[in-house]
């Protein structure tokens, strides 16, 4: 019994000691141990400004054109309806 207890104790101790080794993961590439400063970002990492500027400028133009078209369309519809009503009332002698 003493022998069995000693054997179990040895195995549990080895298992517990081995746990940190088993828990070790392969390195991820992320800076976990420490940060290394650099002066400038590599070009591949920089967010380009030109697409943002062009998108903003294009959006302004497209929005204005769509709005102008929308006013012209609504105005055309109302004026057509006015003319039609005026013709109808003139035809009925009112």
């Amino acid at each position, binding site marked *: 019994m003493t022998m069995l207890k000693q054997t179990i104790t040895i195995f549990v101790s080895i298992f517990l000691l081995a746990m940190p080794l088993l828990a070790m993961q392969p390195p991820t590439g992320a800076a976990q141990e420490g940060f290394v400063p650099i002066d400038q970002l590599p070009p591949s990492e920089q967010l380009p*400004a030109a697409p*943002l500027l062009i998108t903003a400028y294009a*959006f302004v133009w497209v*929005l*204005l054109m769509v709005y102008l078209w929308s*006013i012209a369309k609504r*105005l055309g519809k*109302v004026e057509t309806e006015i003319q039609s*009503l005026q013709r109808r*009332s003139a035809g009925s002698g009112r």
Partner: protein
Amino acid sequence: MKGQYFLPLFALTTAMFAAAPFVIANAPYESTMLLVQKIFYFHVPSWFVMFSAIFISGIYSVIYLVKGDRKADQIAAAAAEIAVIFGVMGLVTGPLWGRKAWGVWWQWDAKLTMALLLEMIFLGYQLVRRYGGPGSDKMSAALAVFGMVNVPFVYWSVNIWRTVHPKTSVVPTLGPGMFGAFWFSVLSFMLLFSLLLTLRLRLERQRAVLDELYLAEEP
């Protein structure tokens, strides 16, 4: 606006908008934000127009609520729609600038959140007017007054609360190259605003004529 002024103003505005990209391109780069800062030249003027449109809408809404003048209501409705358009412009160009300058598209800080709420008030104005039924003109006029009161809070929020947005001191301290380009853009946008308001007001007036014709047809 009388018809004789419309075409020259239209030509001038078109010429200024055609020249604006060159004027903006020739303006100096800002030292920290560089190229993306050039969004400033149409982001800020779009808010200037929005605020002007809101003041016009708000003041004419007060006149309509007090005197019941239908023409005042037409002007208020036309200006309110333009406020929504230029608000969308500001709310889209701002995040495109912020993505590069701040590293995020949006921050829920005082300035940005209040600007979004202002836009939502005037979207609400459009919805009330479109679907509110009888009496919606007065309800929407009250909304315009509420929105107008909100404008100073949006404008000065950057000076009152801590925010990532640039302060109001930026414009008065612009350097020589930036100053000219900025006010050129503002003038172009304000001319455009006057043209759009003229067109949109014509639509409101023609709608009123149409309503009168339909009422006259009723037995």
